[in-house]
Every structure is written in C-alpha cells, then in structure tokens.
C-alpha cells in the first residue's frame, strides 16, 4: 500500500505502518551513522544531552557525499543498518520512533521496535542521486569534525522508503523468497 506520512511520526501513525508498505516521508529527519552513534552513546553514558530530541523522530543512516557548488547535498542513500544495532535498542527505548537504512537487523532491535511501537524503513541502496533530490534543506547540527558522519538535520519531501520491520513484529526480509 502507498502511504504519505510526515516526520516526526506520531505514535498512532508509527504503529499503523505495515511491512511492505511503500511510504513517502515528508518532514524532518536526522542523519547519524557509525561514529555519530558511538558519540551519542558516550553522551548518554555521561548524562549529557543528545544533538536532537529522540522523541518520535526518525534517524536516517546516511553519510552523504559532499555538495557541489550551488547544491545542498551530494549523493544521499542509506548505509547498512546492522552496524548501528548495538546502539539502537537504547535509542528506541528513549523515544526514537523510526530508522531508515538497508539490510537486516538483530533480534534485539526487532524486539525494541515492537516494544516501542516503532518502525524500520529501507531506502534503496545505491539510489543516492535520486534520493538526494528529495532532500530540500540540510544543516549540520553536531559532530562537524566527523565530516560525512556528522549529525545533520534534513528536511525531506516525499522521500521514498519501504517498511521492512513494523510494530507488530513483521519483517519483510524474512518473507522474501518463501
């Protein structure tokens, strides 16, 4: 089913999404990948504030290529989500509502998605040029020294993604080829 949703998500909307839904996201999402997750984990351990409020927000696992002159961002597709699995359950327990990436997640992540009524979306890996066109505004908000791995606030319009794991515990990858 094709759906249009806004980000941040609402509890109700996140729970209503189903594995296999083709979804267009409009609104605000935040980028973070390996190094940013490590720093956010360290910040939580030290009792410090995170670069953005987790509550109902979506993290896009993305490290873009640099923007050409006159452009706001370069190629901007998803990276493999499993490298963030170690950090994800705690972020979900603290309010994170959605993730955009690609590839399989651990059982711990699947459980945390169900526990928190959250959702995991896949964007198409290797479609970074196309996906970049759906990003309308970019601002680095933390960890600028990490370069491509810095945390960015993105305003997106109709970013095309597919629901892979939903709040009911369904997993599209597990039904593939069966």
């Amino acid at each position, binding site marked *: 089913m094709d759906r249009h949703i806004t980000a941040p998500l609402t509890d109700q909307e996140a729970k209503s999404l189903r594995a296999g839904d083709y979804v267009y996201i409009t609104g605000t999402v935040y980028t973070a990948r390996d190094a940013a997750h490590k720093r956010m984990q360290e910040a939580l351990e030290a009792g410090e504030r995170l670069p953005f409020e987790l509550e109902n927000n979506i993290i896009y696992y993305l490290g873009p290529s640099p923007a050409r002159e006159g452009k706001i961002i370069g190629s901007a597709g998803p990276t493999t989500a499993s490298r963030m699995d170690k950090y994800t359950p705690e972020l979900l327990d603290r309010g994170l509502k959605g993730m955009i990436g690609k590839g399989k997640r651990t059982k711990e992540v699947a459980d945390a998605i169900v526990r928190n009524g959250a959702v995991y979306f896949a964007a198409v890996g290797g479609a*970074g040029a196309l996906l970049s066109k759906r990003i309308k505004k970019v601002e680095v908000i933390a960890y600028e020294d990490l370069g491509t791995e810095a945390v960015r606030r993105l305003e997106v319009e109709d970013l095309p993604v597919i629901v892979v794991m939903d709040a009911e515990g369904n997993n599209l990858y597990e039904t593939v080829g069966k």
Partner: protein
Amino acid sequence: MIREIHVEKLTEQIREMCIHATHFLSADMDAAMKKAWEDETNPLGKQILGQLQENLEIAGEEMIPICQDTGMAVIFLEIGQEVHFTGGNLEDAINEGVRRGYTEGYLRKSVVGDPLLRENTKDNTPAVIHYSIVPGDKVKITVAPKGFGSENMSRLLMLKPAQGVQGVADAIVETVAQAGPNACPPLVVGVGIGGTFEKAALLAKQALTREVGVPSEKEHIRKLEEELLARINGLGIGPAGLGGAVTALAVNINTYATHIAGLPVAVNLCCHVNRHIVREI
C-alpha cells in the same frame, strides 16, 4: 627499448578515472542493469530497478555520484617491463590522483588512516594498489572504487580438496544468501578459486573487474558460472533484498593453480554499482 613515462601522467588519469567511475556505469554494467529491469517479475523488484535506472540518469546528468559510498579506491597497475617512471615516486603519484579525484570531484572521503584508531584521512587516500609487471612498454590502469556494504559481506574459505566443485558452489551460494539485502543486490559475484590464501582474494577482486557478460575462457568454469547464476537467482532475494528474480547480474570466476592440500575460495560481492574503468597509456 626503455619508454619513459612521467608519473604526473598517471596522477591525471587516475584523478579523471575516479570521478568518471563514480558517476557513470561502464557499458557492460549499464546494459546488465537495463536487462535486469526487463527480466524482473516481482512488481516491487521492478519498481526498485526502475528507480535505479532513474538514479543512473540523474547521476550522469547532474554529476551526483551514483551512490554516496564512492568507495575505497582499488587500483590495478599492469606495468610493461620496458617502462621507466620519471618525475617522482610512483605510489605517491597514484595517491595524488586519488586525492585530487576525491576532493575535486566532490566524492565522499570514506577512508580512515588506521583501522583501530579510525581517524578519517579526509582525502580518501591511501588507495589499495596492486602492481604487476607484464611484457611491453604500456601501462594499463584499472580503477575500481569499492563500496563497503558489499565488501563487508564477502568471505574467504579454505575448503578441503574432497569438497570439490560441489563444496565450492555451495560456499558461493551460501555467501550470497547470508548477505541477503545487506550487499545491495542485484550483485556481481566475484569469485577466486585456487592459489594461496591471499591469491584467492585477489582473484576474486580481479573477477569483479571483468566485464559482465564475458564468460570465463575455461569451459568447466564457464559452465560453473552459468549454474551458479541460475542457483543464486533462484534464491528469490531480488533487488534490494525485497524479493524477485534478479539477485545477481553475473558470477565471474577466476582460477589459479593451487596446492595438493588446498582448495581456497574467495567470494567478493559487489553491489549493482560495480565500478571499473580501464585505460592504457
């Protein structure tokens, strides 16, 4: 007769090749992706392959890299034995080409200088360079920027000779099955069989630079490539791992002599952005 080549020539070629390879698929890959779109039977898979076609058009027209992971630069240099390089250190000249390509071409800097300390080198150097000395007075350069979504799902196995062709085939199919969506299918599967531990890995990497659609020259290997492609596409993993008939575009196998006690097999997976560009100077 010694031929002198100034290393600056290599720098300039490599700069251009890094930029070109990350924005335009080679003709063989481009044709394979179009054929994949035609062949795919699952509607979602076809939609994804259509999106990837559109992505390639945007990449070329607007000079946005096909994928944000513009890779670690893998460079093969086949150097004619009559060649004498002048004007500086060869390795420095190659890395300077990578540095210029990745900075001037707005490519992502994805390299950390130390695997444990993990500080970004900020210019995508150093490259991984493989040299070989061949007859003649030419230099053949292959630039193959390698993304790590698929690199991370690659495997090297030291099988027993008794496991034979069946063991090899099963190991390859199992590697693709385990990778599932992570390696960004449709894939090109590069396989190295034989040699030693490190030779098998190198053969697999070289297999990825062979044009898609050009089979092995060895009859028994060509048959194995065909069989494996059919088996892998029978897995149903499909585009982006979301189901479909096209999981791999090609299986390219390179082989080498090996030891009586061994059967090394390396499987180097590459996503559909299998970048390889070749020039001769």
